């Protein structure tokens, strides 16, 4: 924008010439911008509902303004805080398990020299990413069923008692994390494998000649080379701490475990769509967006402070 102004000072005609030269490009961008305005920016205006006592008949323009009353109500609601807590717990556990495991699997795949084995392994590991959550949840409820579920049948064959994978709070959390890891672990390795192939091979040779063992080469050559990718990925994931997909908790969850499976997204959905509490639901969405941006900016600052590339 600033540059445009600068050009304008030089000569308005010159400026229009440049714009005119790009007329086809602007024409292509018209539907794109229109899409963003209608489906992304107009809804952003709808956020004012969070400060209104929204009434369907009066709409955004006619509803009464109530200031922070809606927020006040939400912040005093224990269900809301429980949803925030559950979101953070599920995200944190998934991150703690998934993040290191993805790196370990990437490193292992990278060590594999048999190209055929590597290709087949990768193909199969990427596959779950393309399966819908409805299907994953369907398979999981079948496999982890307490009565006659495959997993419990296998466990009972080795003398372990029935485990309530889907109906006890702790076990449900376990199953949730497991399904997430199953679905995304292979997909996550793509980025690390890309970073690993670009590691300078002469470093390995030098280390080898200096008598470094395989393990030492891993610690002193491989890991430092992919450090920046690791940091970037970690920051990206941490900045999504407050965001949780609705599919997995909604589909895997059930009444028995609602104490741990009700997360922000499912809470917003139930409140807004099922109970038509538009103002409350929108206010929670806004709260979530604001927290997201705070975390994102903080993570970005942190990355830059430790000498890594930022993400914004």
């Amino acid at each position: 924008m600033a540059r445009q102004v600068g050009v304008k000072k030089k000569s308005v005609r010159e400026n229009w010439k440049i714009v005119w030269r790009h007329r086809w490009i602007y024409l292509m961008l018209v539907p794109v911008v229109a899409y963003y305005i209608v489906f992304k920016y107009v809804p952003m205006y709808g956020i004012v509902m969070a400060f209104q006592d929204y009434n369907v008949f009066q709409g955004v323009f006619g509803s009464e303004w109530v200031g922070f009353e809606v927020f006040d109500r939400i912040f005093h609601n224990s269900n809301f805080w429980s949803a925030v807590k559950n979101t953070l717990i599920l995200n944190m556990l998934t991150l703690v398990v998934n993040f290191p495991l993805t790196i370990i699997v990437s490193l292992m795949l990278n060590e594999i020299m048999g190209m055929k084995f590597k290709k087949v392994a990768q193909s199969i590991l990427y596959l779950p990413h393309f399966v819908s959550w409805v299907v994953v949840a369907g398979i999981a409820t079948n496999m982890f069923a307490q009565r006659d579920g495959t997993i419990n049948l296998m466990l009972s064959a080795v003398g372990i008692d029935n485990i309530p994978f889907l109906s006890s709070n702790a076990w449900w959390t376990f199953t949730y994390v497991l399904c997430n890891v199953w679905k995304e672990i292979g997909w996550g390795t793509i980025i690390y494998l890309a970073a690993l192939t670009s590691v300078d091979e002469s470093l390995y040779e030098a280390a080898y000649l200096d008598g470094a063992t395989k393990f030492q080469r891993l610690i002193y050559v491989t890991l430092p080379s992919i450090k920046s990718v690791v940091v970037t990925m970690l920051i990206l994931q941490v900045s999504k701490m407050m965001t949780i997909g609705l599919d997995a908790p909604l589909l895997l969850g059930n009444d028995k475990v609602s104490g741990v499976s009700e997360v922000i997204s499912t809470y917003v959905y139930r409140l807004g769509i099922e109970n038509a509490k538009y103002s409350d639901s929108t206010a929670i969405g806004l709260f979530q967006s604001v927290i997201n941006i705070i975390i994102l900016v903080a993570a970005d600052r942190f990355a830059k402070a430790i000498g890594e590339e930022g993400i914004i």
Partner: protein
Amino acid sequence: MAKTKTLRKKKKVTLGTVLLYGFLTVLVFICLYPFLNVLAYSLSGYNAVLSGKVTFFPIDFNLGAYKEILGKSQMWIAMEVTVIVTLLGTLLGLVLTIFAAYGLSRQTLPGRKMLSGIILFTMYFSGGIIPTFLVVKGLGMYDSLTALYIPQAINVFNFIVMRTFFRQLPESLEEAARIDGATDMGILVKIILPLSIPIIATIGLFYAVQYWNGYFDALLYIQSPDKYTLQLRLRSLLFADELNNAGANAEGVGTQVMTQSLKMACVAVSTLPILVVYPWLQKYFVKGVMLGSVKG
């Protein structure tokens, strides 16, 4: 690369190598097993499922479950709706993403920073479910298939991947065409697109999977059962009767077991199209993900 390969190859088969292959084999098996389990259940007979014998292979092999679901008109309608939504959504998504990415990959375009900013900002901040819902409803798209592919037409990640790709193309190609008097539209269609087949395939796959697997938008916007998408239909088949069965098992074990085979047959049928397309596109999408990781 070649050098190190020979360097490492000299090593004998060590315990470490065995463990490495062993661990990865187990992991691959874990990734694959649920699919085998689905097949085993869907192809097994009544009594085998009932007595809890099915784990790896179908027992009392029969195709009854598949015959039954393929005989349901609901399934076919859902399949048809999903194919339509997937095709239109992928097409619209590709066209808009190409327009946006090509336009904003041009370093000379006045206002390009601001326009990119408009797109990227939506990654971090959004109106949320309800305001979006009200806008879509206000446009008269409620209970219409358009609500399933228009409101989510452009995915920002896909835009970034595509823009990164276009930026990497050599500018000399364009300049030559421009001297020959080609317009931007002509350059895009005649020069850029033919060079971009791999990335178009990748992004096309991402959109197609998004629409094929999407279920939340259908849950939000679709009311009439004849417009149910496959995933929504699948959900009601897989989970609706579970709610009913939770309390009472009195209605007869036979039907319940049949539904278990049936459920898994539904899962198999709805996942099959992805499994068919997937191997053909695999070599492309790895590159796509890597392009996306380059900072936008």
